[in-house]
């Protein structure tokens, strides 16, 4: 009798326990993660998230990834987050960071970060996600331009600009539409490596624009020397043109980023090397580094859990999955100790380039720079005005626009 009732009680107890744990299960905090990856990048991220959800099963956290088309991504974040409709965590490169911070979209994660959190991440990558001395995101991946060359045409990639010019001239035959080097020298982003090699920059320490600094001007006249005297660059370079030249083996070398490789035909043997050193200044060409970070929304109700998740994204295992399956360049440096990564010439090539690259400024005012430099560069390349005049004017316009933004109250 007693035993029976004991059994009953245990049954009832265990049943109610189960019911209770079922309730607990149902009460998982669901964190929404937005990203704009596609293809292999998307599936590798989803795999990593699934792994996390498995590891955290029963701990009250579930991550739900959502792919948002890249074109609409920034606008969606800008519109949805302030109204509390956005994600808890989102992944994007640092170029929109400043604007989003100024409009109160991204939560600073300084509070959560400990010394060891980012010990495996290059300081440079962290600084890309740092705004006004405060860290706003955890670096996941990075991208930069590098020297991409056709291994059939170029046996050893150039180490210095002199070697580059010699090689480029050797492979140029304008009559046959062949060029030694193809890159968008008339676009500011692609001119930046030379600018940095000359010690030029866009903003000074006071974050005022310095587009017309003498270093910037010197770098432009160096570029014009390639264009005018070198005669190894195609006219009016565009993405479509460069891709088609490279695919027809009519461009031996190209300066572009990982995104370019998706366009390259399979029968071309691609090599990647860091950009060469400019002999005149003794400094390497330093491309701008875009860092994809994971950010926490200021409106998220689960900021601590969100932080634990993005911290997980920087672990070595995650990095390996993203590198080997997604073809991305993880920020965690221990990933590059793995033999599978080291044997991948593409990952290795871009990782080597990262060591000399500089983070692209994340200030909101960058769009103003982007809006005034095309005119200046076009004028310079078309020689409708002097480098001095073009850059002075760009500087004057940019300064005016920035001052309008930053007026005192």
């Amino acid at each position: 009798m007693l035993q029976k009732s004991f059994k009953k009680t245990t049954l009832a107890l265990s049943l109610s326990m189960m019911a209770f744990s079922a309730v607990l299960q149902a009460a998982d905090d669901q964190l929404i993660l937005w990203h704009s990856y596609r293809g292999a990048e998307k599936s590798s991220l989803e795999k990593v998230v699934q792994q996390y959800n498995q590891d955290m099963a029963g701990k009250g956290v579930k991550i739900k990834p959502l792919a948002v088309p890249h074109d609409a991504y920034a606008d969606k974040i800008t519109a949805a987050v302030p109204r509390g409709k956005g994600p808890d965590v989102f992944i994007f490169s640092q170029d929109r960071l400043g604007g989003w911070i100024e409009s109160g979209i991204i939560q600073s994660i300084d509070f959560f970060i400990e010394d060891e959190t980012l010990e495996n991440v290059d300081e440079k990558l962290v600084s890309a996600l740092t705004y006004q001395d405060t860290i706003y995101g955890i670096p996941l991946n990075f991208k930069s331009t590098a020297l991409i060359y056709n291994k059939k045409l170029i046996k050893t990639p150039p180490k210095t600009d002199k070697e580059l010019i010699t090689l480029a001239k050797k492979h140029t035959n304008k009559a046959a539409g062949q060029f030694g080097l193809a890159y968008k020298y008339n676009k500011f982003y692609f001119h930046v490596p030379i600018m940095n090699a000359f010690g030029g920059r866009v903003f000074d320490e006071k974050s005022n624009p310095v587009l017309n600094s003498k270093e910037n001007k010197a770098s432009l006249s160096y570029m014009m020397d390639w264009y005018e005297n070198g005669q190894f660059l195609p006219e009016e370079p565009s993405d479509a043109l460069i891709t088609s030249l490279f695919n027809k083996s009519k461009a031996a070398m190209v300066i572009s980023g990982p995104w370019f490789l998706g366009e390259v035909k399979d029968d071309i043997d691609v090599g990647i090397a860091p950009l060469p050193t400019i002999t005149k200044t003794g400094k390497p060409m330093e491309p701008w580094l875009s860092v994809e970070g994971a950010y926490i929304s200021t409106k998220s109700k689960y900021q601590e859990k969100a932080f634990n998740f993005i911290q997980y994204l920087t672990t070595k295992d995650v990095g390996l999955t993203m590198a080997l399956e997604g073809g991305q360049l993880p920020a965690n440096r221990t990933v590059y100790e793995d033999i599978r990564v080291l044997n991948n010439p593409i990952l290795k090539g871009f990782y080597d380039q990262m060591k000399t690259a500089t983070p692209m400024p994340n200030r909101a005012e960058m769009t103003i720079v982007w809006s005034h430099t095309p005119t200046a560069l076009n004028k310079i390349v078309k020689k409708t005005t002097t480098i001095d005049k073009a850059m002075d004017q760009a500087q004057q316009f940019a300064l005016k626009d920035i001052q309008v933004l930053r007026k005192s109250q």
Partner: protein
Amino acid sequence: MLRQPLSKQALFGLAVALLVSLFFSQWIASEYRQQQFAKQQIQQWSIQGQVLGPMISQHIQEKKNLQPLLVKWLETHVGIQSITVAGIKKMPGYRSKRIVAHTDIMQKSGEFQPKRYSKDTRYLYDLAKSVARHVSTNRTENTFRKAHIVSNWEEKTLQLAFPLYLKNKVSAALVLKIERPKPPKSDIQFLAYVGTGLGLLAIALLFIPQKRRYTVIAASSFFILVVGLYSISTFHRFEQQAIDSASHMLSLAQHETKDRAIAAESLLVDIYERPLGWITPELTLNQHAIQDYLARPMTQLRNFFVLIGGLSLLFLVFIASGAASRTIATLKEHRQAYSYAMPAIIGMTILVFFPFAYGIMLSFTDTNLFNESLPLSERWIGFGNYVSILGDFNVVAADGEAWSVNYQNFYWTLLFTIFWTVTNVFFSVLIGLILALALNTEGLKGKAIYRVLLILPWAIPNYITALIWKGMFHQQFGVVNQLIQLFGGNAVAWFDNVGSSFMTVLMTNVWLGFPFMMVVLLGGLQSISSDMYEAARIDGANRWQQFRYITLPSLKPTIIPAVILSVVWTFNMFNVIYLVNQGEPAGSNEILLTQAYKIGFEKYQYAYAAAYSVVIFAILFIYGIFQNKVSKATEANA
């Protein structure tokens, strides 16, 4: 019998107008008073921050114990619940984010050993961090756009964070937790004004001839009188509140400086830690400085009152003159029709009129990315944007001998847009007409195939067409230049000068535009009766005469609506400009819409872009009125 409804309507109109205008005025005035009150609270407590802050900094520098200082401060100052010295540490070395000292009124002791933050004290770290960030931002940019004194209004408390300067750098913040001050009661004086107004009018109506005109005038003048009195008394109390608060602050400051060598006038600061200048060195109130400080909110308040009063007055006249009752009668009579239209009306209101009204409101501010979060009243600048758009006539800039056009100027862009629209529409109509005439030829074989082929440019999404054309104008590899070279010409750098760059967008857009014209005109041509041509031939008219006197006049009712539509489309044809030549060179080929886009989304000057859009709207609105007249004229002709 006639007297009754007249005075009733006037009284009712007055009551509604008074209630509406006084309610909204009262509401806005109390919003302003709350805002001022919040500011004054922060200013009052800042006095303590200005005294205590430097003392703490000195203690820390001299490595003295903070305990006696903080405990004594708590004992001598009523209303403070706790004082915290919240530390932050700069990068690199993210560890050791610690609270330096913390005291609580309940214990009068507190903790004076640095300790780590916990989940519950994270807000202290966030406050301290934002103070440090704001100070450093202002210093680097050499501006005052971020508050040095950060306030956080909680349900029961107000937290104020002040920067603590150590060797001129902010490495910690002083956080005062204060019992949340009670906001001033908003009095319901407006009811008194409503009552007075109505009473006065009721008496007056007895003596006024009961003609509608006179009752409306009487009601309006009473309305103006009552609202005017209300406004004056509100302004007076507004000012009084500021002066009271300032003299309170003066006594607070005097109290704090009693035994210390600090100047009282330096203690009254705004949230950027700039002296307010309300206290003279002789320790009296500087009335001028206070009035200057109040000038901005007062002017805004006055403008609001005028606006609300004006609208209410219209309302009054609307009711008192009997127009309101007629409108209601119409609504009742056609209620079925209105209920059918309701979903559309609601949809339009939400999707069109709200954003539109918001855009117009935005255009009167100086909103940009950096000051979006400020209250509207601090961003309000009135017609400033319009003045700088329309008042800037520097289209041509002279640089010594050389003349150059300032392509960023509104008038250049406007002229360009008009030129762009006119040429585009002209060529689209011309080509469309020629092709329509050709397709209209009787007995033409394969007509259906031609028609489909000619409609294709219209059927393909226009951004795809635009990008294809952009590629065709490439200097080295574009098909256009290769054709030119085939015939022995030199390659043209299409996007390099104003004219050739314009040619590229013109060709693209005409390519996109002619199929529409062709289709419309073909329809028009087919509806012309062949009898007319037959009669003309019998009369001996040649082909040209037939075209000139039969075809063209008969096509007029078809052409004009098509042209009107096409003008609006072309005027705002964003895709072609944005994708083909990007307004190059130097922004000379920018149309108004792409320019507004650039201002808004590249330069982040949201308000300026909004004003630009309103100007575009005004232009199209005027054009709309004009075209309405023209189409009426064609209807009459047809």
